[in-house]
């Protein structure tokens, strides 16, 4: 089972209305060539789950600038003025989630858990509409899992089985998103035969398709 597909084949998977998790933190560790392919495909009404809104010309910001995004679930949008503008005009729905809660909700979705209690957000707007429970004398918010149709990852080294590593600070949301989507695509900077089984960040079973980066 060869997991390697072309960027054109990746485009064939795309359609309107998909929910897509995109790895990266301020567009560091984001698979830019997959994002570019989505821009070219021009599919619409996407729900994007990402740490942030990227920049106008970088990361998921390119999808926002191209009006392909219906809803963004992220923790920070400050570096992409277009996101704030579209939110203000009602063209883009944005759900702001604390970063630690965001990554934990994704892990929750990938790990088969129904929800978790976090102290983050207590006493703030984040608690609106959520159950508050006191456990061991501390107030916690109930937060629920996130799951998506696709996850798009950026791997610095990917082996032919799909085992993936993310070097340095490229890692961020990538390995957790790998667990929480129906189909997982990784843009591979380097494609190798095998990785030492002790140091793999994402086991191959999570990776459905590998797209080799065009240098």
């Amino acid at each position: 089972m060869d997991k390697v597909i072309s960027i054109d084949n990746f485009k064939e998977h795309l359609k309107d209305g998909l929910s897509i998790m995109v790895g990266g933190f301020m567009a560091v560790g984001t698979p830019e060539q997959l994002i570019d392919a989505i821009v070219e495909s021009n599919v619409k009404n996407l729900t994007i789950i990402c740490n942030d809104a990227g920049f106008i010309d970088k990361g998921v910001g390119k999808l926002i600038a191209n009006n392909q995004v219906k809803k963004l679930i992220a923790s920070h949008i400050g570096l992409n003025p277009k996101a704030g503008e579209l939110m203000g005009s009602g063209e883009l729905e944005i759900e702001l989630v604390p970063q630690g809660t965001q990554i934990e909700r994704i892990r929750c979705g990938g790990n088969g858990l129904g929800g978790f209690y976090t102290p983050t957000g207590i006493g703030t707007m984040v608690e609106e509409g959520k159950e508050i429970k006191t456990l061991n004398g501390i107030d916690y918010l109930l937060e629920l899992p996130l799951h998506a149709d696709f996850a798009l990852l950026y791997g610095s080294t990917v082996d032919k089985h799909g085992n993936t590593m993310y070097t340095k600070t490229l890692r961020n949301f990538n390995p957790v998103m790998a667990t929480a989507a129906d189909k997982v695509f990784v843009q591979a900077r380097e494609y190798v035969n095998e990785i030492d089984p002790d140091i793999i960040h994402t086991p191959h079973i999570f990776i459905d398709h590998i797209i080799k980066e065009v240098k």
Partner: protein
Amino acid sequence: MDKNEIKAYIAKRVSLELHDGDVVNLGIGLPTMVANYIPTDMTIHLQSENGLIGLGQAPGENEVDPDITNAGGQPVTIVEGGVYFDSSTSFGIIRGGHVDVTVLGALQVDAKGSLASWIIPGKMVPGMGGAMDLVVGSKKVIIAMTHTNKGKPKIFEDCSLPLTAKSQVDMIITEMAVMVVKEDGLYLTEINKEFSLEEVINATAAKLNTSLLKEAK
């Protein structure tokens, strides 16, 4: 003091609160400057919430590695012994009480130790990023900011902006003074010699208890 002197003054004063071996998260902007004042004989483990411990000095022009960045997406370096991890581990470290000190800025802070820093409704909505987790999870939270904004107070009895967290701030350090948050309100512990007690009180919209006031460090 000009703007840069003010920032340097605050950053230097914050650095005195750190202890050898501390795990510390410095927010974007002014708090980042605290790193410049850590004594060379002290080991401070700087955490960056995007996924590393061991932030080093800013890279030289020819040393930039775009794969090593901080939570603002800016290129940084890593020290010997440093370590990279994913965001889940990073916020496990933060929320799990493994960060000793968090230093961040704020739009408003109040006498109950609550802070507002992530939204001005109808005007500016950058989002909370990791700030809510950091102030809830860290053992000690220090607000490092200018005492006023264009002459208007930023320290209140109660924040009027939406909160980042309730009652999590331990200390406020500005160019005018150092304040400690206690159960019954704000205690002024130090005043910058360039300012009088009256000036500090006038620039603050919260009651300041002066019973713990001592010479500035």
